[in-house]
């Protein structure tokens, strides 16, 4: 039997699906050999980007770079290989009273992916992107050299790699700072907003909260447009917790997580079921405002509780569409976008709205800038291309752009914002698509 490394591979949206070479190694020499003998390589972590960002002719999977290297428990600094998942890190650091400074809405992403996407979370307005806390990382570049990159050393590579979507090389390991926590719980307030005016006002009022995000029902029209629930939170202190939780404030009980066993047939998700879901979700909360304490898993990673939830979108897959629109035009832009979606009948559940804070100008490849960002899931179907074109036009009109980690079909003028990443060694299908559209 001769090995054959070509296999079907797709990311979280199950779209697109391609047949490409996938290799995974743990020895540096073998990784170097792989880089030397191929062109058009891209690193891939846990495949949690949605589209074609981590696909290429030759995919280097970091799944075997899964080891911790060091943990300075006194100063809260951890170092690990790039294939280690945020979930692995949380398991180790939370019981020691530490948390990730920045985490996206899933903990099943790799550290390499977190840097390459420069991920953001519910605290972007207060604490910025993942890169703010990265001390250094090691990068295997196009010449097969391993560079230590930090703000002082190889700083050019450091900044081009942050948010650089893997186009500067393979991140092998990284060292970054952690945040002190007293408990594994979040003090949460959730507040219902009846329309866009209310939710925008809530965002302005919630700026002093470390975490804030809104779930928005994007099928509402007319005066109900923008109906949403604002969720804001702070890491809870021990003395605030109910007595029962105070005994072991940093340990969570293992919860059962169900798995979606198969791809749902296409008819399951339609406008009606999505509408119904959104209605139930909105009315689950009876009162205008709820204050409670919830564990960090529930607050940050509600979807991680269901394994393989992407299968509910069926075999044809789905895309996630995430854009940012400058703050001053935010309300008008969002209104136009929500109207367009409601009219299209391509319902999205789980639309998430958030107000980004100021960007770090040094991290020039990072997606976020000050403004409103909306993330939507759409099932892949015949109407989708048309909807994306319409949405892209609005985003462009309002001076916004698209998050590359989610993108698989947007207009290249909205996605062609990376700088200093051109080389023939490290290229993704996404990058080729964007360049060729120009």
């Amino acid at each position: 039997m001769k090995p054959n490394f070509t296999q079907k591979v797709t990311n979280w949206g199950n779209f697109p699906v391609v047949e490409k070479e996938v290799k995974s190694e743990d020895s540096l020499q073998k990784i170097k050999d792989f880089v030397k003998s191929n062109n058009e390589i891209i690193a891939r972590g846990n495949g949690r980007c949605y589209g074609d960002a981590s696909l290429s002719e030759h995919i280097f999977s970091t799944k075997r770079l899964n080891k911790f290297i060091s943990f300075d428990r006194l100063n809260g600094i951890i170092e690990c290989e790039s294939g280690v998942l945020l979930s692995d890190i949380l398991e180790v650091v939370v019981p020691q009273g530490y948390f990730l400074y920045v985490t996206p809405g899933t903990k099943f992403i790799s550290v390499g992916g977190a840097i390459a996407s420069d991920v953001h979370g519910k605290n972007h307005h207060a604490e910025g992107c993942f890169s703010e806390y990265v001390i250094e990382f090691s990068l295997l570049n196009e010449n097969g050299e391993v560079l230590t990159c930090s703000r002082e050393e190889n700083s050019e590579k450091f900044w081009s790699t942050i948010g650089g979507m893997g186009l500067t090389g393979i991140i092998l390991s990284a060292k970054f700072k952690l945040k002190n926590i007293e408990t594994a719980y979040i003090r949460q307030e959730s507040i219902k907003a009846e329309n866009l005016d209310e939710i925008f006002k809530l965002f302005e009022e919630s700026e002093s909260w470390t975490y804030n995000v809104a779930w928005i029902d994007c099928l509402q029209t007319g005066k109900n447009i923008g109906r949403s629930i604002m969720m804001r939170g702070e890491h809870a202190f021990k003395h605030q917790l109910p007595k029962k939780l105070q005994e072991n404030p940093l340990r969570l009980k293992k919860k059962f997580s169900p798995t979606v066993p198969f791809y749902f047939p296409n008819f399951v998700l339609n406008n009606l079921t999505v509408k119904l879901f959104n209605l139930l979700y909105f009315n689950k909360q009876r009162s205008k405002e709820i204050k409670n304490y919830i564990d960090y898993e529930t607050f940050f990673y509600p979807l991680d509780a269901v394994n393989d939830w992407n299968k509910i979108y069926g075999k044809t897959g789905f895309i996630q569409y995430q854009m940012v629109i400058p703050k001053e035009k935010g309300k008008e832009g969002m209104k136009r976008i929500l109207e367009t979606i409601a009219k299209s009948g391509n319902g999205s559940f789980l639309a998430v709205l958030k107000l980004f804070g100021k960007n770090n100008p040094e991290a020039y490849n990072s997606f976020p800038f000050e403004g409103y960002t909306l993330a939507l899931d759409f099932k892949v179907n015949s109407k989708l291309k048309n909807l994306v074109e319409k949405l892209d036009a609005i985003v462009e009109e309002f001076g916004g752009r698209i998050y590359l980690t989610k993108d698989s079909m947007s207009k290249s003028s909205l996605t062609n914002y990376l700088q200093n990443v051109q080389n023939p060694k490290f290229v993704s299908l996404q990058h080729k698509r964007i360049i060729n559209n120009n």
Partner: protein
Amino acid sequence: MIILGSNSEVAQSFVEKVLEAGGKYSTIFLFTSNKETTEKFAKHIDVKYFQHSEIIELDLMKEIDYTKFDDITSDLLFCATGYLGEGTEEGLYDNKNTEKIIDINYAKLVPVLNFFAEKMERQRSGNMIVLSSVAGDRGRQSNFIYGSAKAGLTAYLSGLRNYLFDKKVHVMTVKPGFMETKMTEGLPLNPKLTATPKQAAESIYKAYKSQKNVAYVLPIWSIIMLIIKNIPEFIFKKLKL
């Protein structure tokens, strides 16, 4: 805990499984032919589980100085050494290949296992978990050098289990079947018959806790091998397996 073949992904997953289940050891002895890669694992378990370990170089293809291992004792030994080598088509008449397969999987391994078996016999307690292979259940044309070496190992383990039984030492033979490891990457393995190292470790840990004698990692392999073992020879010799 003593680990032979510490760079094996199954061995590493097994160590993590034991530690996750709350196992505590003053030292885990990591025997390896490649110190550099094992060092990464040693650091990893230190960070993740506060677990101290010691790396000991052991290359079965070289002369072994047993005096260096005199002070090493433990209640639990896990052996995942193995070498697939070239299969029949590429490597049958290559004597170097054949010898290496026999040495690593059987000839040079048995004395090492004996060395630790004797220690356990003396301390009158212990568990030895050794990975053999379904390939050892019956020789098939595609890889019977490997298969015969593993068959030898399986027979050795069966005898050792019998011999150590009233000395309070338990020997478990594990027959993994297909596994998704570095050794098999790129091979067209049926995913339904293939276990990840993590799944394998879970299954082996469970079998160890219930003191099984012979364990297949995926239950389906016991059925497959039962069938393969029972095909009459006059038919079997004509099959392309």
